[in-house]
């Protein structure tokens, strides 16, 4: 799509207002300010995802970054947001499970902040609606930054003179917990990321991907069925359906059936406070989305993460239990881990070793070019572990054992490439608003 961005605006206006083109002269409609977005980041998604009035301003972003990096927000001055979301590591910590104050392990793998602004919900179980809500919880989580309550946080922040000045300058009042969250969220909203080799390929540069990577893209849309949850197109190029699925990760290291049965009983009997504590501080946190919705068919389900920058944001899954993307492929290839709440879309895939290699190669093309070096290192590191594959079960994947049904249609790529189906389209950058610059 190489139309001038004015046409995008026209379409957007028509879509949003529901009136005909003739009825609304586009030049008189104003759009929410959005920064200049790189290819691979959708202006439409920006509009859908950034609430009106929450557009990041440079002042809020600067204060937000300062807070994001400040260990003084934790109870013993040892942990900042950045501790688990290290910008240099793609805003993750590279550990299977993150560590909070006093070296306490938390129950989750730290998800990347990159493109988190586009998530429909925040946290692995989607318990926060917005980045503002999200920013508060780790500060108050006893295993993360360990502050007892919001009042204590703000007492401490108001005791730091530079923050009193900063908040006064940005918000025109003394520091509040809400304003603190607003600033951190503003900083996080600038952490969008596209501009991957994949985007060059979609924009028409057929040489941007190798033959193996192109084959991986075809498998992604075809035999491997990745796109059934990791859906992506030009309007929503995140490769996530933003839904919650039980793929059996929580079932491979414990008696999940017993745990789930107990958990369901507790939730039926328990009150709000107890259930939230379960989500935080017990083995029941493995029940995932269920502890948020209390709907039994959400037991053990976690959010489909974005695949943007997936190469540099391992280890994988909500508990970081899969070290490499080869492990992830093995997990899906055998149809996940059986449990009564397994998502109905899980089945064996019958992928061969070369196909798995191609898929992994493709996934590494989704990393933003500014992380090229790290991406190469991570690929090399993961490849070196290729022969340590705890999740590999070729017999199940190939249908020689178990009863996980037929594999999905396996198209002859020479005749029909499933990646050609559908309309991905290419991304048009949004108009430039010079005041806000991407860091």
């Amino acid at each position: 799509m190489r139309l001038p961005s004015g046409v995008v605006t026209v379409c957007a206006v028509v879509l949003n207002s529901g009136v005909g083109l003739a009825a609304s002269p586009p030049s008189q409609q104003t759009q929410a300010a959005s920064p200049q977005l790189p290819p691979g980041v959708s202006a439409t998604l920006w509009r859908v995802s950034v609430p009106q009035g929450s557009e990041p301003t440079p002042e809020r972003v600067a204060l937000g970054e300062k807070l994001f990096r400040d260990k003084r927000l934790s109870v013993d001055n040892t942990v900042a947001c950045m501790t688990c979301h290290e910008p240099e590591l793609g805003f993750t910590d590279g550990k299977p499970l993150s560590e909070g104050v006093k070296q306490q392990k938390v129950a989750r793998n730290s998800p990347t902040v990159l493109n988190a602004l586009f998530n429909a919900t925040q946290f692995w179980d989607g318990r926060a609606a917005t980045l503002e809500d999200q920013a508060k919880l780790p500060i108050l989580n006893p295993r993360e930054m360990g502050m007892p309550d919001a009042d204590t946080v703000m007492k401490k922040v108001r005791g730091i003179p530079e923050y009193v000045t900063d908040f006064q300058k940005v918000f025109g009042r003394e520091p509040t917990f809400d304003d603190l969250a607003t600033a951190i969220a503003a900083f996080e909203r600038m952490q969008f990321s596209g501009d991957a080799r994949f985007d060059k390929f979609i924009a028409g540069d057929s040489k941007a991907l190798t033959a193996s990577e192109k084959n991986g893209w075809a498998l992604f849309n075809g035999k491997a069925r990745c796109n059934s949850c990791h859906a992506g197109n030009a309007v929503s190029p995140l490769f996530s359906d933003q839904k919650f699925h039980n793929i059996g990760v929580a079932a491979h290291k414990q008696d999940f059936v017993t745990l789930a049965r107990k958990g369901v009983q507790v939730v039926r009997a328990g009150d709000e406070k107890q259930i939230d504590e379960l989500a935080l501080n017990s083995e029941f946190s493995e029940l995932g989305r269920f502890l948020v919705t209390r709907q039994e068919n959400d037991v053990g389900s976690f959010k489909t993460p974005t695949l943007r920058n997936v190469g540099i944001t391992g280890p994988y899954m909500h508990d970081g239990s899969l070290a490499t993307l080869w492990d992830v492929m093995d997990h899906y290839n055998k149809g996940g881990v059986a449990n009564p709440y397994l998502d109905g879309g899980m089945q064996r895939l019958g992928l061969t070793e070369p196909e798995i290699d191609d898929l992994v190669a493709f996934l590494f093309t989704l990393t933003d070019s500014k992380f090229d070096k790290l991406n190469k290192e991570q690929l090399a590191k993961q490849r070196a572990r290729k022969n340590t594959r705890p999740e590999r079960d070729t017999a199940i994947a190939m249908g020689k054992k178990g009863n996980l049904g037929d594999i999905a249609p396996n198209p002859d790529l020479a005749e029909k490439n499933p990646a050609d189906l559908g309309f991905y389209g290419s991304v048009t950058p949004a108009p430039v608003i010079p005041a806000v610059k991407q860091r």
Partner: protein
Amino acid sequence: MNLRMKLLVVPCAALSFAGGVALATSPDAKAVPQAEPLPKHVLPASKDGNLVLGLCDGETSMEVPGVKDGQKLTRAQAITATAQLMGDWRKKNPNAKWDDVPGPVLAQASPPATKKSPAPAPQPAPGAKPAGSDVRPGGVGAQTGASAVPQQRKADVQTGHTYGAFSERDEQVWADSVQAAVKEGHRVFHDAEALGGTVGVSCDMCHPDAANTHPETYPKYQVQLGRVALLRDMINWCIENPVRGKPLADGDPRMRAMEAYIYAQRKGVKLEYGKH
């Protein structure tokens, strides 16, 4: 069975046996019938070596004075020339059904029908509470009203399992994706270069705003093609003949986008396949 019949039957049997063997043994043999080559619009040669343009009816043509064969028209020249061609055709066919050019219609222009979705959770008014004390009674999640998240963001309208639980956000993303395809189709439809044309003619010159493309009448018997055609067959006929480009593959993104655009322009028109 007389001798004559035997003479006929035996070679036929032998042939069909051979055919069967060929089908059974050759992995390439597919039961896909091969299409005959399409008829071509043969244009009359110009005495002066001028460029001759053809119309999509497969019959009408005209010389463009002052432009030599092999030269490409400018967009302005092409618009003038195609307008004359269309005029000639309408003179020849005064009784042909002809739709006036419709105003631009955009796909998905009307908002999706309002569905009953859960009422949004009550939101605290900004500034209603004293600063820093927004911790509601209850657990940690209760601070953000975790259970209200689906309603707040309309993130999962049915709060059910994966399939069928789609949000307004999803629907907006979908509608915009379709719109993106339509927009790309609009671009290709109006761009002789994108179509791979060699004479500077683009689709919109005969079909402004995709007028008279009638996507709702396909599949139908197309006289120019001498067979039943899909919309994409007709698009390719036009690309090959008036536009003088190479036909696009079924999976070509430009073909798919143009189909999206052409259908979008006829949104709301009754489906009447086979109509002439």
